[in-house]
């Protein structure tokens, strides 16, 4: 948290002194409001996930979930509920489309030794343990589709946090099967899956 606060302060000073002809001038204020936390080039930063390359319909659906307070984990409450409160649907759509066009970079922060186990769980699930295949919804390369998010290359810590939160009873999009999926995953499966996904290009 301290790091984020510090970063915001530094960025604020930087932004206030930067000259108008820098690359920042090309980004709208609305985009900058997102990238303060979501990282340079929207590639993600600590608890704030990468938005680059994310499915635009997913970004819009999450903005709606924050606005309606359906997505209610602690960081969502602390940051995103306020961040989207004054965001009109038109701007939300423009932001979603903008971030979707940025080339995403994989976080590569998982455990390499678990990646192949993670890939097996991603593709096949563990039918004996009633763990479903992630591939069926998120696609062969974890690219997502429509309002189903791209998972490939998101950071290990972000993905792990989300899966754990569903298991703890926090919510996201209404009607999502993810809480049910997550309650069946044990800690080792979460480690392996999120490690694998962090390396997917």
């Amino acid at each position, binding site marked *: 948290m301290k790091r984020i606060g510090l970063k915001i302060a530094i960025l604020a000073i930087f932004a206030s002194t930067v000259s108008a002809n820098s690359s920042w001038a090309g980004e709208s204020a609305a985009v900058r409001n997102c990238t303060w936390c979501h990282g340079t080039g929207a590639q993600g930063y600590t608890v704030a996930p990468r938005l680059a390359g994310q499915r635009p319909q997913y970004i819009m659906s999450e903005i709606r979930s924050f606005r309606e307070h359906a997505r209610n984990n602690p960081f969502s409450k602390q940051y995103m509920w306020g961040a989207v409160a004054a965001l009109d649907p038109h701007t939300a759509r423009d932001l979603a489309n903008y971030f979707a066009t940025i080339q995403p970079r994989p976080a590569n922060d998982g455990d390499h030794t678990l990646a192949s186990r993670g890939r097996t769980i991603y*593709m*096949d*699930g563990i*039918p*004996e343990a*009633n*763990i*479903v*295949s992630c*591939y*069926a*919804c*998120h*696609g*062969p390369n974890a690219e*997502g*589709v*429509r309002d*189903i998010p791209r998972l490939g290359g998101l950071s290990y810590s972000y993905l792990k946090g989300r899966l754990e939160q569903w*298991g703890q009873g926090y919510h996201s999009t209404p*009607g999502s*099967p993810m809480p*049910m*999926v997550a*309650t*069946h995953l*044990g800690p080792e499966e979460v480690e392996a899956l999120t490690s694998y996904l962090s390396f997917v290009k």
Partner: protein
Amino acid sequence: MIGARSVEADAPGRRRGGRIVKATVLRLTLLTAVLAVALSVSGHAQERMAPARGGLEAKLEYCKTCHGLQGQGYLGYFPMPRLAGQQPEYIEAQLRAFIERRRSNPVMRNVAHVLSPSMITALAMHFRHLNPPPFGGAPRGSIATGKRIYEEGLPEANVPACSACHGAEGKGQNEIPRLAGQVYQYTVGQLSGWKSERGQGTAVDTSAIMAPTAHNLTRSQVEAVAAYVSSLQ
């Protein structure tokens, strides 16, 4: 613990009594802690194993994670068919086809091969009694065309009326599947790729009945029929 310390400090003249109180408080604290740990462990175990009746209930929840919480179907990266109200004989036949690789599907092969014959029967019987509204989302423009093809066929193209086998209301019978309320994208995908998914290998497979019909339908006719059946309750 704070309680124990304050008793000792407030009553230095009653050391004996204080010690008894302290011991009692300590014991209570310890007991509470043990209970809390035990409860949280059992709570966690229950959560992980939920629902408790391991076999069938847990497997049904697993099916419904992808096929919709009420078995109404779902759109993931792939369309997941509606299972609600499906003919049990059809579900059993298809699960066996996945296991025997007569029907190729990268997800369902893994899902089906761990199911025992009695589990397959129990799952199939469960879905027959579900009756959620259709998943919806099909284009509405071609529903009238689809209804005509469904009820009359396309004699000039050697397409028999769908209703002849699947029933006037699309409920199916025995191994012939219910089509009513089926997810539009799923039906389109199946009819467009019939021969690449169904009837694989050399074993006899009832899906061969549909192969010529699927072949003779154009893409727009497939879409019209799929839109019509998806709207049936």
